[in-house]
């Protein structure tokens, strides 16, 4: 048991560190420190401009798309080197936020399923920060039951005509390309009638509408498709093979070394500075008990990441760490926000940053946290994944088993 780099890894880390020291946009550090998980918040500069500039700089120096082969614009780095890079890049990694769906999900799907010419065309543009990708999977009626999507693609000569609606699409407003899951045959089994495409987001007939979220932000979007025409050449996988292609995307939704922030260090600070009649809140036994329960989850996730890095460096497949991390951190984000507000007393209901403690950080966390428990796999889906894939428990018994898609009961057919 040790925490040391191998000599090769140490050499990689030293190279990364020295390049970063000379090149990071230090003027953005303050804003990046405050920027939340998953979406980049910048005020002094346009976030997309800043993101593209940083990505291009990395690409030109050979630090972009680390794990991809060189012919697709990558650096051919090992998984452990990617972890080291993330570690060293630190908060500046948030600048690549708009590209993450491309790097983590769409890119690997293109690598696995597109033609060689398409890969050489699309992937270097993504690596260089020229193109932003989004993922067009979820629909109003298909979230956890993703294979129940209804957006229809109908063949017309060597093109497809797409009609339908996608939802929860981050980055749709900025995206150049979308990875689009469609239903091409509603008369066969649910998972068999799907086909995957990639689509130019500037195509006629695509309309992006921002969603006003309950926390007053609009990061997520709806995307409407009205007679959108897509060339058959932009199909990924065979007709009817869309679910298999989608699984490539979903299996790649894994982040190493990047623990989700939960607000715990800030909570610890709050408990240290908040005075009660009996001294700082942190000296109260009940406060300590709750803090300790949070603390061992935070450290447990951190050390679990160390364990998975060790496994990766031995060439083992990643395990269920990401499901555990998201399940625990998501719930804890909400719990910590509520606990902080409780400690703040009546002042806890203030959300005006000029009056609320900590400039309303925990109030904002409270209002954002319901999404963390749903996005990218709800708490319940994650528990199913752990129960089925790790513990070997049986899959759910399904009411739609063996039925053609158009015969599956819906809320409409139940009326």
């Amino acid at each position, binding site marked *: *048991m*040790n*925490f*040391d*780099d191998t000599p090769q890894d140490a050499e990689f880390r030293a190279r990364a560190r020295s390049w970063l020291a000379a090149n990071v946009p230090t003027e953005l550090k303050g804003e990046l420190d405050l920027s939340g998980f998953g979406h980049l918040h910048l005020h002094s500069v346009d976030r997309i401009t800043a993101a593209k500039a940083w990505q291009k700089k990395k690409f030109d120096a050979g630090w972009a798309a680390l794990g991809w082969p060189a012919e697709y614009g990558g650096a051919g780095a090992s998984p452990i080197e990617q972890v080291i890079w993330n570690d060293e890049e630190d908060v500046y990694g948030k600048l690549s936020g708009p590209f993450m769906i491309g790097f983590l999900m769409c890119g690997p799907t293109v690598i696995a399923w597109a033609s060689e010419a398409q890969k050489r065309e699309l992937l270097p543009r993504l690596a260089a920060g020229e193109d932003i990708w989004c993922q067009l999977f979820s629909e109003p009626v298909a979230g956890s039951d993703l294979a129940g999507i209804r957006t229809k693609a109908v063949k017309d000569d060597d093109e497809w005509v797409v009609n339908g609606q996608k939802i929860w699409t981050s980055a749709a407003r900025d995206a150049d390309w979308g990875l689009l899951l469609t239903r091409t045959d509603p008369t066969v089994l649910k998972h068999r009638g799907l086909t995957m495409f990639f689509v130019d987001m500037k195509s006629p007939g695509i309309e992006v509408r921002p969603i006003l979220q309950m926390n007053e932000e609009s990061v997520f979007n709806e995307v409407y498709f009205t007679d959108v025409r897509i060339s058959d050449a932009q199909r990924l996988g065979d007709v009817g093979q869309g679910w298999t292609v989608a699984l490539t995307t979903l299996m790649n939704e894994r982040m190493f070394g990047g623990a989700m922030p939960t607000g715990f260090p800030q909570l*610890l*600070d709050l408990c*240290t500075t908040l005075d009660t009649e009996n001294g700082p809140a*942190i000296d109260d*036994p009940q406060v*300590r*008990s709750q*803090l*300790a*329960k949070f*603390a*061992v*989850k935070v*450290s*447990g*996730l*951190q*050390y*679990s990441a*160390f*364990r998975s*890095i*060790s*496994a990766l*460096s031995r060439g083992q497949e990643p395990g269920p760490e990401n499901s*555990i991390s998201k*399940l*625990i951190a998501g719930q804890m984000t909400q719990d910590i926000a509520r606990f902080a507000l409780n400690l703040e007393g009546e002042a806890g209901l203030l959300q005006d940053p000029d009056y609320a403690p900590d400039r309303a950080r925990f109030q904002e966390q409270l209002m954002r946290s319901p999404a963390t428990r749903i996005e990218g796999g709800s708490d*319940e889906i*994650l*528990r*199913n994944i*752990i*129960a*089925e894939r*790790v*513990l*070997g*428990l*049986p*899959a*759910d*018994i399904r009411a739609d088993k063996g039925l053609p898609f158009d015969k599956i009961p819906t809320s409409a057919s139940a009326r």
Partner: protein
Amino acid sequence: MQFDFSEDQKELQATVRRFFDKSCPISTVRSVIDSDAGHDAGLWRQIGKSGFLAAALPEQYGGVGAGYLELCVVAEECGRVLAPLPTVSSVYQATEALRIAGSEAQKANWLPKLASGAAIGTLALAERAGETLPGSIGAKVSQGKLTGVKLPVADGLAADFAIVMARGESAPSLFLVDLSGEGVIREPVKTIDPSRKHAILRFVGAAAEPLGGAGEGFALLERVRNRAAVLTAFEQIGGADAALMMARDYALQRFAFGRQIGSFQAIKHMLADMYVALELARSNCYYGAWALSVDSEKLPAAAASARVAATQAYQLCSANNIQVHGGMGFTWEFDCHLHYRRSNYLALALGGPSLWESRLIQHIRPQAA
């Protein structure tokens, strides 16, 4: 980074597991529960010969001289099989107390016997309900003679010596008492886990020699318990893993409403939560093992994290294991209650959860500038 046990340590784990598979079936645990014996003497002799529990002890004291990581590996296997052995008392606490505070003569006298299992040591601290604090110590040593009552004392009937917290001329100190001497009265006492028996020890002028400096009792105890907390946490995750596997296997085998109960989300999600708690505890334990093995300055926080997380995980897994088994889990015949008992005993064995939660926060709180 290599944040895992080595191949050799994993091989040791497999060896210890094979040893226990053969020598410590659940019938061994049950026979200790049904008898007056504090532990299984035959198993204790065998494990003494194997050297498994002497892994961390230097060779000069009859140990194997491997290290604490190896002892952690063995502890996890002890927990998995509910080993009815004086591990927490003798191996994780008395041995460590001697290593930390013993004079050369005390070490030379006792450590080789502890290493081989020829002697059993224990700590005698608590006297009444509530956390054991300096103000709660009534036992007193005067002119080398100890007077007072200690309960509960783990393995107090079988132990050859006790390390006793008592007042001397100054603040509470540790004293080493040979329990075969005059002035020691021992009585068995019923506890929540009869697979690890406890006693009441009454000292009536028993000969007591100082262990460590006068007035240093609680400071030394904290150092002992930081080490013992990591080792005990490995027993706890071993037990939690066993309870989880029992629950999983039963959920696959038991049918209700025409299907395996493990296909119901209510059961699946309960089991998923148990697995997650165990994995987080395991990761905290690995960090504690590392801190213990290199005697890191981070040991106090790492030990508290391992202790808090492992206690939670074992208590959750053992309670939910009964829940998954339904009514059958509440019978004496099913083994579920053995883990439930052990998990709740181990939760208190080194001071309860609140104590460790408080310590953890004390160690990680932001320091005033």
